């Protein structure tokens, strides 16, 4: 079944079966890549933060540039009120980015290509943002669903639409990331399969496609992590600065 393009998304157990009560929480290949991504982030940024030189070396520069990149992203989209949530958005961005990027290594598993992972992240963000909104504004947060300057006739319709769009946020956020990663990896696998099936004569076309797709996928891997983080910032902005 190795030629099946969906085979790469299979989750399988590594090591013994671990059960918590009746729930299976075994260590799988997905868990392995989560651990690898987290460890990579921690190691790289720890090394980058270790030295305190005036002129940074490469790793220090990398970590400091990432720090200021995320800080700028947050302050641009959510303003200065979002500063306490910096470390969460930084971890989120780095986690998604590293999972996406590790997925680009051949035979590696892409954690973010699983809807359940992205959905848990998105749902956590959704719930968190909603709680923050209600804490900051009380019931006034419900004004988010009532845009100003809308004629009274249209108001019920608009409110319904706003509520639906608000509630669909976690779904759109999670599906966007998951679908992008799955589609990209499937496509690469399909074109990789063509290289084999068309052989030495016709295999060059899909091979070149595959090469181009790899570049595109690396771009998408970064872009989707960025989009995920920036949408989180935008939702946070809605909760912190009630504009409507």
């Amino acid at each position, binding site marked *: 079944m190795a030629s099946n393009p*969906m085979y790469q998304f299979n989750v399988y157990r590594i090591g013994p079966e671990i059960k918590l009560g009746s729930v299976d*929480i075994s260590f799988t290949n997905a868990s392995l890549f989560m651990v690898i991504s987290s460890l990579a982030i921690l190691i790289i940024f720890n090394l*980058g933060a270790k030295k305190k030189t005036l002129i*940074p070396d490469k790793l220090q520069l990398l970590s400091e540039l990432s720090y200021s990149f995320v800080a700028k992203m947050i302050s641009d989209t959510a303003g200065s009120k979002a500063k306490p949530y910096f470390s*969460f958005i930084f971890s989120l961005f780095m986690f998604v980015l590293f999972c996406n990027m590790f997925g680009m290594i051949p035979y590696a598993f892409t954690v973010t290509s699983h809807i359940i992972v992205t959905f848990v992240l998105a749902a956590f963000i959704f719930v968190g943002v909603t709680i923050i909104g209600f804490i900051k504004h009380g019931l006034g947060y419900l004004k988010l669903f009532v845009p100003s300057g809308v004629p009274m006739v249209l108001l019920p319709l608009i409110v319904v639409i706003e509520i639906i769009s608000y509630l669909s946020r976690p779904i759109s956020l999670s599906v966007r990331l998951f679908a992008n990663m799955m589609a990209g990896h499937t496509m690469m696998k399909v074109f990789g*399969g*063509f290289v084999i099936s068309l052989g030495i004569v016709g295999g060059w076309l899909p091979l070149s496609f595959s090469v181009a797709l790899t570049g595109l996928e690396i771009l998408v891997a970064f872009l989707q992590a960025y989009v995920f983080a920036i949408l989180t910032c935008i939702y946070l902005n809605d909760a912190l600065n009630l504009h409507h």
Partner: protein
Amino acid sequence: MLKKIVILLFITCIACFNTVFAAESGGMPQLNPEFWISQIFWLIITFGILFIVLTKVILPKISDNLETRKSQILENIEIADRQKEESQKKIDEYEKIILDSKVKAKNYFNDAREKILDDINKKRTALEKDLDEEIGGVEKELSDLKNKSGEKINKIAAETSAELIKELIGEEVNSSSIAAIVEDQSKINKERKDV
């Protein structure tokens, strides 16, 4: 060539359909809930640890680094500015000192010159005065001498002629008449000399 490409594309399409159908028969592993709980569990653990370590240990260090660098750079710029100001002040001071000393030197020079000129003038006037006095004295003496000499000569001449007359005639002649005669004679002599 075109034919070849068309055939290639056709084959590609068939292969594509085959693989897609094969995929459909396998289904999406993402929708298989067998390992969902495990994935959620490990996601929470790994992401949680990542979040905690980043928040508590790594990010403060990075922000500290950035802050210290920023403050250090600002400090250095401030120090550089201060030093620049100081050096400018010193340059100004130096120029002022040089200007002052130049003016002072000029003043000294002028003072000295004036003093010397004054001295010279004073000495010259004193000298001239002395000279004038001396010349006046000498001239007066000379004129005195000139005036007196005539009288003296006349006197001597009168006395001598009185003596001579006494010797010659053994008689005292009135001295005043003799003096008158001598005077007349000397006047005549003088006129003769002048002619």
